[in-house]
């Protein structure tokens, strides 16, 4: 049976190692925080914070304390605040070990599209282009296919790119793929998903 959202998040959490500084995107990536267990992980919020804590208790919301999704959050004993130039300095400078992000499309060469659908409303890339260009490792977590059943893992992206050749690993409901020389490599299959199923659901070349 393919993984559900929580299983995908749990699998993504396995990518994280003790001591890592990590940036989590919105959607399924946000759930990853629930599965880090005892590992000493520090979450960055790119608006200017390391050591992001959970949502506040009702009545304790602080308008001066939000995450990159503009949600009210809390601080931890390890927290530090800094300005946006410093925040993206550490992103661009490769100090963030990993970013776990959602995607609209990923290509076999690691191209990523997750910020814009031409003809639809254009909201902007926010910090996504900086993150995929700068962090040590880019892990995409997404459903393998879109709501029409079309593969989101492609030979080539059709949407405007967020980054070129930036994705290292793709975690979907069907399993785990790595971007390698020449295409994609199956690292793991979700319980009960066959290699055939993975291959037939993937348009990008699996080596």
């Amino acid at each position: 049976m393919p993984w559900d959202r929580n299983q995908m998040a749990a699998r993504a959490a396995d990518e994280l190692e003790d001591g890592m500084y990590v940036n989590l995107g919105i959607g399924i990536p946000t759930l990853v925080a629930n599965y880090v267990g005892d590992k000493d992980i520090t979450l960055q919020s790119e608006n200017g914070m390391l050591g992001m804590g959970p949502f506040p208790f009702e009545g304790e919301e602080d308008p001066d304390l939000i995450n990159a999704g503009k949600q009210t959050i809390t601080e931890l004993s390890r927290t530090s605040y800094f300005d946006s130039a410093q925040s993206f300095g550490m992103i661009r400078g490769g100090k963030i070990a990993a970013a776990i992000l959602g995607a609209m499309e990923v290509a076999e060469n690691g191209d990523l599209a997750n910020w814009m659908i031409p003809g639809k409303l254009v909201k902007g890339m926010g910090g996504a282009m900086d993150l995929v260009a700068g962090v040590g490792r880019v892990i995409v977590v997404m459903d393998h296919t879109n709501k029409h059943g079309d593969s989101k893992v492609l030979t080539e992206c059709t949407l405007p790119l967020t980054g070129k050749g930036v994705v290292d690993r793709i975690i979907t409901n069907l399993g785990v793929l790595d971007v390698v020389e020449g295409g994609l490599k199956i690292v793991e299959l979700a319980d009960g998903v066959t290699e055939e199923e993975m291959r037939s659901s993937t348009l990008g070349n699996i080596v």
Partner: protein
Amino acid sequence: MNKIYPSADAALDGLLSDGMLIAAGGFGLCGIPELLIDALVKSGVKDLTVASNNAGVDDFGLGKLLATRQIKKMMSSYVGENAEFMRQYLSGELELEFNPQGTLAERMRAGGCGIPGFYTKTGVGTVIADGKEVKNWGGQDYILEEGIFADISVVKAWKADDTGNLIFRKTARNFNPPAAMCGKVCIAEVEEIVPRGSLDPDMIHLPGIYVHRLVQGEHEKRIEQRTVRKREEA
């Protein structure tokens, strides 16, 4: 040398002209210069180009300046919270220059630091790179991005001393320091002005040299996404 002005209107007096470039601090609705935005609306200054990560929401923040059509062009990374923005943009009334968020912050800092251009790999291979100079270091392409040199900066801080030294609070710091740095004149609104000597000199986030005019006032500090968790039963 008095930097303290009695109102946001007074703090902007003599500084405004149509078509000018304004750098504004804030991220979402957090740490935005509410009072100075209201004063800009009141001033009627128009054809503005505004460099700000976001464009507010329809009835708060920079959205107010959009509603009055005082903005000609935005330089931003994310404008998804603002329906009026979209309407004006799609109808061609408003220009929009998208900047990756970190590139925008660094462009502001660069302008403030006398750096007209710097190379970054952010945006390489995307539409952001279109028309930009490319240079290769160690097999990796980087694109040239330019410093932003604003006419004025409008920012919000938590506390100031009377010499203009500023302290920000939590994630309300965000774009405020780089925005402050890149303006020829910077006007800062704060929640509290304390006498010089009240702030620890080791703990100044933005030295007063960057701050030309100060105004103190009440802030609404609207929350955009109120997310909470339940208290566990004891």
